[in-house]
């Protein structure tokens, strides 16, 4: 039986490997060929490791022959957002300041990928240090949305979503701080997961805002997301904030349906603020959930409207400290000429960081400075507590909460880049979840009637209740019947 090596899900590819219908080398080569064909238009990759991936693929094929598989997915290729440290492979965070840095170690997410036998195809574009919603802040050029090359793929994990959506790799790892997986997944018609804070180790994930950062799968199907999360999730002794136990198998019981499940609709997100096409798509999605037997009711999350404000104090504050280490002393970029060490550090940082990163470092430095700490950072932490309390209250009556992932479909490159505030607001529905630490997923609900671009439904679960979240997302995806069809594939080849 022949298998479509470009568009099959990772689960389907694993089945094909098991059935002997394809080899890991076949599918790895198919990914390489596909990227060769499309990446000059997408600019998804920052660094490709084709030879190494093929070598890993050959090893996976040998293991399969010898019957000593590393995992069910041994041999299914993958790519990583270029913010995960990869041993012997350049890691830039899309920043000039890290140019030339080659980490001596693998991030835990990457190490667990290797341990499961996933050949690594390369490193994917992002907004510099994951600060942005469009990849326009990349130090190495913007990625393009395969649904419309003049539009952004979203961000910050936009390189990852562009490649997965274009069939260049079945799945990829992105990271979130305020929605950087869910938002670009939504804009590219993909599944994107923000796991519960601590579920996936942050070790080797170059920090933006430590209390918010969390790695998340980017896939074309819900099952693939559940599977990829399962590969990396669970305790890591290298991360003191890591969940203390092993993760369950999220594929187990994923198809058990949502009959009788109580699902909350966020009152505050119902009206203005979203494009008509997005609103219509989401309301259709609610009806699908009802049809599946879920009971929908309104919940109120009044603190959510302060989410963006709180986020833009907490995240920059932590970033200002996390990014202090980029000083030209030991690795990465260093300015050519300086009269002393202070000037060397200042010039290195001035020349190495892009505008958005500098803006956030300055915001954060200010928010933490003596005399302002309580008014800014302290108050933002109080809002964070309120958001956690509002969610806890809502979960007294519902099992899950749903809302749009983003207020609009993919916007044009350049449309918001001159207006940071407008850009920040594209994360309005995702940011509160990062502040609370809960799990959430963005699932495609087809395309907008306005512009034919993908719309994403966000399903927010309780902390560590990924299992319920995946069940609902899976039921919705199956009922909608969009994923895996031609309609879910961007018109990239026609436009070529």
């Amino acid at each position, binding site marked *: 039986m022949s298998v479509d090596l470009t568009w099959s899900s990772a689960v389907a590819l694993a089945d094909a490997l098991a059935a002997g219908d394809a080899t890991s080398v076949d599918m790895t080569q198919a990914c390489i060929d596909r990227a060769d064909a499309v990446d000059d238009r997408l600019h998804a990759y920052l660094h490709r490791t084709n030879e190494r991936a093929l070598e890993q693929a050959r090893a996976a094929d040998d293991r399969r022959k010898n019957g000593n598989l590393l995992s069910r997915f041994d041999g299914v290729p993958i790519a990583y957002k270029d913010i995960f440290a990869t041993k012997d492979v350049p890691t830039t965070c899309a920043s000039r300041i*890290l140019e030339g840095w080659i*980490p*001596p170690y693998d991030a835990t997410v990457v190490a667990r990928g290797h341990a499961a036998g996933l050949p690594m195809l390369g490193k994917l574009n992002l907004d510099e240090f994951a600060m942005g919603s469009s990849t326009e802040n990349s130090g190495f050029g913007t990625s393009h949305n395969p649904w419309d090359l003049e539009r952004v793929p979203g961000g910050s994990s936009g390189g990852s979503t562009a490649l997965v959506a274009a069939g260049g790799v079945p799945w990829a790892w992105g990271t979130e701080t305020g929605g950087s997986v869910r938002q670009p997944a939504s804009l590219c018609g993909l599944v994107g997961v923000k796991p519960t804070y601590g579920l996936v180790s942050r070790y080797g994930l170059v920090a933006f805002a430590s209390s918010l950062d969390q790695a998340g799968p980017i896939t074309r199907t819900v099952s693939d997301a559940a599977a990829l999360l399962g590969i990396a999730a669970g305790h890591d002794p290298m991360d003191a904030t890591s969940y203390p136990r092993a993760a369950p198998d999220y594929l187990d019981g994923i198809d058990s349906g949502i009959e009788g499940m109580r699902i909350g609709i966020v009152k505050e997100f119902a009206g203005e603020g979203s494009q008509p096409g997005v609103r219509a798509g989401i309301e259709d999605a609610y009806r699908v959930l009802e049809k599946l037997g879920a009971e929908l009711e309104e919940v109120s999350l009044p603190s959510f409207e302060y989410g963006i404000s709180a986020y833009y104090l907490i995240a920059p504050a932590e970033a200002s400290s996390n990014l*202090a280490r980029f*000083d030209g002393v030991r690795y990465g970029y260093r300015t050519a000429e300086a009269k002393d060490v202070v000037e060397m550090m200042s010039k290195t940082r001035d020349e190495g960081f892009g505008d958005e990163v500098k803006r956030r470092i300055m915001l954060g430095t200010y928010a933490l400075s003596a005399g302002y700490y309580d008014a800014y950072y302290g108050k933002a932490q109080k809002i964070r507590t309120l958001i956690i309390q509002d969610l806890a209250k809502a979960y007294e009556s519902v099992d899950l909460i749903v809302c749009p992932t983003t207020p609009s479909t993919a916007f044009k490159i350049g449309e918001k880049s001159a207006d940071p505030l407008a850009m920040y607001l594209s994360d309005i529905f995702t940011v509160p979840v990062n502040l609370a630490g809960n799990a959430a997923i963005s699932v495609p609900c087809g395309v907008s009637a306005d512009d034919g671009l993908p719309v994403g439904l966000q399903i927010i679960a309780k902390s560590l209740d990924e299992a319920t979240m995946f069940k609902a997302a899976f039921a919705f995806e199956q009922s909608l019947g969009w994923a895996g069809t031609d309609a879910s594939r961007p018109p990239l080849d026609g436009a070529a």
Partner: protein
Amino acid sequence: MSGGADAYETTIGLEIHVEMATNSKMFCGCPVAFGGEPNTRTCPVCLGLPGSLPVPNEKAVESTIKIGLALDCRIAERSLFHRKNYFYPDMPKNYQISQYDIPLCLQGAVDISGDFGSTRVGITRVHLEEDTGKSVHVGGSGRIGDSEYSLEDFNRAGTPLVEIVTEPDIHSADEAREFVSELRALLENLGVSDVRMEEGSLRVDANVSVRRIGEKEFGAKVEVKNMNSIRSVGRALEYEEKRQREALDAGQTLVQETRHFDEKAGTTSSGRLKEGSSDYRYFPEPDLVPFTPGDEWVETIRATLPETPAERRERFAAHYGLGEYDIGVLTSSKATADWFEAAAEVYTGEAKKVVNWITADLFGLLNEAGQELHETKIRPQQLARLVGLVDEGTISGKQAKLVLEEMFTSGEDADEVASKKGLSQVSDENLLAAAVDEVIAENADAADKVRGGQLNTIGFLVGQVMKKTRGQANPQIVNDLLRSKLSS
């Protein structure tokens, strides 16, 4: 108005950094050790590489709690780490993981013998943090500002570092020295640190101010750094105290500043001026979770605390009947006190005799050889045996000194050295009688004088017998023999 020593009062508070002698560093698995080939004991975590994360060392937390308990502190029910943000090339992350408003240990005290009897120095706080790397600035003055380049060694980076801050309860250089000495003994006794000031595992900074007696406000606070031994703590603070008094006498205004002690010159010199306090932008370390030591753990740790130096001093007085001076010398370091006890344990006579042999003779030899007690070849049990030989009358005190010297170089037992040197004292009356008779015959005049009651002449005759026996005769026995033979 003229100053004079009595018109001023000195106020000193100390900040002491102690490197913990844990197996591994504070937030990673790299080994803790002094020196070594630069940058060989490092990993992504202690190098602060992008993406790396800290995981706290429980043993270091335990050591800090031990110190807190030994300093009579309250242990916080809940504590956490903060980030202290500032740029410096030897700090891998450009922030230091430290503690801020909720240190692990609070409000303790140490009693020292001060200028006016026993005095209590309050401990404000004891907290845990990570050490920085080490910079060597090449060219220029040796400071970073005008050096040609700097070399960085990160072997030390991430070593668990405990900071102990005292209240400004110290009023003289002597008291400061006494406090550091007491604290060092206490830390050594706990076994938590090497406490080697010359290697930087114990570092002392002092805040010194001087004011006219009766003034309400403290004088300008001067931070004195770079004191690399207990002796230099005394010298630096003596100098600084004098400098500030003289400046006030001369009508000058003192400024808040940091001054470095110059070991060679014995003076302090101005570093950078402190313009207010730096803004370290402290905030809770988001890579770590707050921790609650819990009563149960704290009590478990308390139960493992060794005898404190103060308790040991009391025991030395009660058990061995030693005086204050001897106790002071013996307990100045745990090593010395341990050495003494090992000797005293096997020695059957009065412990005071062993003390004399240690403090007078052995210390003299160590001094000459430039050795420390732990380096000597003599074991405590061997010294005890030597003192025993003197007690038994097998050798004289004078001979014992020669034996000790030999033991010091060879490490042999006292008996072995004594017999090899033919030094064993002759106490056998039958053997000595012949010599005594010969001396009486050869010195008839003197013998007659003794017989006639001039007992002071007997010393002369003893000397003659000693001469004849090449010093091996037991002088007490000779004396007794002469008396009995010359009594009429």
